[in-house]
């Protein structure tokens, strides 16, 4: 009768296997190295033994009349066994439910705790499973982290990366690649690459399968390139894995532009040098072959001198530019008073203005320089700065009609920086020239500036000098409104002048 209600008897008996379980719990060292754990079958069969023994005992106590080994004990033991079977199956069921919950919420191993008070054998199974799952999850996490890092690294690359499968479909691409080719990084996955990058050279290279030898990369214009924003790409195909391909693209627009600029520069230098040379050669030939009067001879020689001088200044300017490019930037010393720079600049500007006026038999320019001392001091290479200032003032004189007003200003700004500015009331510069005006040999009006003795390198030199001194060059001009070139030096290179009487005493070296 008692055996017919096993759930009632369970709690009391259950203590024994769970006691065995707590014993294992108490020794975590055993639990850690679970290969060496004691045979978990022992407590299980111990429980079976106890069940059978209890069943037999209870039944023999309930029916003391019957003989000890006979009808009372045997069915009692059998019932005990059945109760154990039921109990054991129930525990297995709990474990199975736990597994079911885990499957449903696959990621949340921590959120689904083990069923409480499992007997030792089933607990062992559950714990081993849990440990296995945890291990795998950790490995997976690691793998995922690594993959994420790899993807992030590929995304960070300024070069385009496209992974192609065996059928040349897009498997994955990074942001740069989608920008380079105008692709949609999500929707274009799976598309055949030749459907979207249709350049015949690229398609032929892909079809040839000769990737190992294609050291020479393919250069093509990006599909999203336009007149305003040209985009030239250099592509490389690298095979990897099982018939897979990596398509790498690099933006070479700037490299090509730099190359074009270098070519232009060489062409311009040659052209600038050839013109005076042709003239010189012509005069030399004339002098050699034709009998000339003394006046004519002198005239020709004077012209030859002028052209020789022009070549000389050009070569000198080129040397200055190359020196500016090669030498290290000037340090924060020595300090030079701004007014000495301006005074030297004023003297040279007046001389230039008078020279031009004499040559063209017109008025000189109206030049205005700040006369005050104590404008502060400026750190850097005084020679370079002076040549930059003189270039700016010289430009203002050369490119404005005779009699124009040229103002040279020096201003100490509130934030500690200082601005050197040259303002004229000449014809001004059209906006389309402004971005390119500091390029070498760029001329707004080629005939005019060559006449007035410019080499076409002045502003390039100015820009280089100012860059080396951390200064910025701003050009503010509109046609008919005059022009204002201002160079602003950073606060670190400017300081108030030491309190010395004007023009007296040695300056700090």
């Amino acid at each position, binding site marked *: 009768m008692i055996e017919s209600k096993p759930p009632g008897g369970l709690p009391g008996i259950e203590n024994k296997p769970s006691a065995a379980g707590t014993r294992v719990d108490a020794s975590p060292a055993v639990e850690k190295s679970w290969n060496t754990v004691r045979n978990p079958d022992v407590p299980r069969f111990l429980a079976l033994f106890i069940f059978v023994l209890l069943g037999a005992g209870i039944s023999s106590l309930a029916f003391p009349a019957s003989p000890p080994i006979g009808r009372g004990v045997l069915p009692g033991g059998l019932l005990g066994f059945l109760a154990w079977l039921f109990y054991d199956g129930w525990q297995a069921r709990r474990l199975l439910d736990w597994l079911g919950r885990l499957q449903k919420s696959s990621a949340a191993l921590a959120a689904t705790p083990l069923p409480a008070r499992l007997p030792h054998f089933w607990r062992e199974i559950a714990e081993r499973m849990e440990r296995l799952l945890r291990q795998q999850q950790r490995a997976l996490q690691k793998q995922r982290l690594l993959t994420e890092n790899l993807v992030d690294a590929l995304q960070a690359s300024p070069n385009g990366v496209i992974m192609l499968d065996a059928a040349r479909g897009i498997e994955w691409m990074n942001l740069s690649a989608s920008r380079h080719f*105008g692709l*949609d990084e999500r*929707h*274009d996955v799976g*598309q*055949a690459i*030749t*459907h*979207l990058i*249709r*350049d*015949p050279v690229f*398609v032929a290279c892909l079809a040839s399968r000769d990737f190992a030898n294609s050291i020479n990369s393919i250069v093509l*214009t990006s*599909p999203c390139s*336009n*007149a305003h924003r040209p985009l030239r790409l250099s592509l490389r195909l690298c095979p990897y894995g099982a018939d897979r391909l990596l398509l790498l693209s690099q933006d070479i627009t700037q490299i090509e532009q730099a190359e074009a600029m270098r070519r232009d520069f060489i062409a311009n230098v040659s052209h600038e040098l050839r013109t005076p040379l042709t003239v010189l050669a012509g005069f030399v030939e004339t002098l050699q072959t034709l009998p000339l009067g003394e006046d004519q001879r002198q005239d020709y020689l004077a012209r030859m001198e002028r052209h020789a001088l022009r070549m000389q200044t050009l070569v000198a300017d080129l040397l200055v530019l190359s020196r500016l490019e090669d030498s290290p930037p000037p340090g924060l010393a020595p300090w030079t008073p701004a007014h000495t720079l301006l005074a030297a600049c004023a003297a040279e500007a007046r001389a230039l203005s008078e020279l031009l006026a004499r040559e063209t038999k017109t008025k000189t320019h109206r030049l205005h320089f700040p006369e005050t001392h104590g404008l502060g001091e400026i750190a850097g290479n005084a020679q370079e700065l002076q040549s930059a200032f003189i270039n700016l003032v010289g430009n203002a004189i050369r490119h404005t009609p005779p009699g124009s007003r040229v103002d040279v200003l020096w201003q100490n700004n509130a934030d500690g920086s200082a601005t050197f500015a040259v303002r004229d009331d000449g014809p001004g510069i059209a906006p389309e020239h402004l971005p390119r005006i500091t390029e070498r040999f760029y001329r707004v009006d080629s005939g005019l500036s060559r006449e007035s003795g410019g080499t076409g390198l002045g502003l390039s030199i100015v820009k280089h000098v100012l860059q080396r001194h951390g200064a910025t060059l701003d050009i503010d001009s509109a046609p008919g409104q005059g022009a204002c070139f201002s160079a602003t030096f950073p606060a670190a290179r400017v300081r108030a002048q030491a309190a010395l009487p004007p023009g007296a005493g040695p300056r700090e070296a």
Partner: protein
Amino acid sequence: MSEKHLSSQFDSDLNNISSQLMEMGGLVETQIQRAIQALARFSVALAEEVMHAEDRVDVMEIAIDHALTSVIARRQPAARDLRLLLAISKITTNLERVGDEANKIARMVKSIVEHGEARKMPIGDLRLASDLAAGLIRRALDAFARLDVNAAVTILKEDDMIDCEFKGFTRKLITYMMEDPRTISDSLDLLFLAKAIERIGDHAKNIAEFIIYIVKGTDVRHSSLPQIESALQN
């Protein structure tokens, strides 16, 4: 010979034809780009390159038509597959015409350079229209690769921009001709050039219409934009 094998073979046939069409598209795109560059730089060398490559476009057209015939004969496709094959056939014809227009531009550039007069004419205005046309063809082919109806509708809308440019350019040429009758022959050359560019835009529009036909099954040729949009919403 299972059903699946047959259909996957069919799939690969269709893919093959699409790839061929795309290859032809790429070739035609390059032709346009080269022709535009020849125009911008007055380069006879580039113009001649375009004229030489014309044959390759023709050869590809014939190859695609042949492949189409054999697939239709063997597979007897229906529904979307049939629409796809029919559309490819028509797109091929359109692309071949675009190639012809590029060739025409190249020939015109060559004759302009050889006469050496048209440099004073407003050729810069053609740059914008030709870039627009090349962009339309590129996007039409992209839309075909992705079977993207939205992109196709955008192309239909933007073709009008090229038409506007063409009209503006024509008016400008008329003023040139009225000012100085000596520019008439050059102006006519330029007019043909502009017409070729305008035609490229029209072909891009046709391709876009076939994309809508493939995906939606509605023939939107010769209908206005509002009609097309309402047809697409149904």
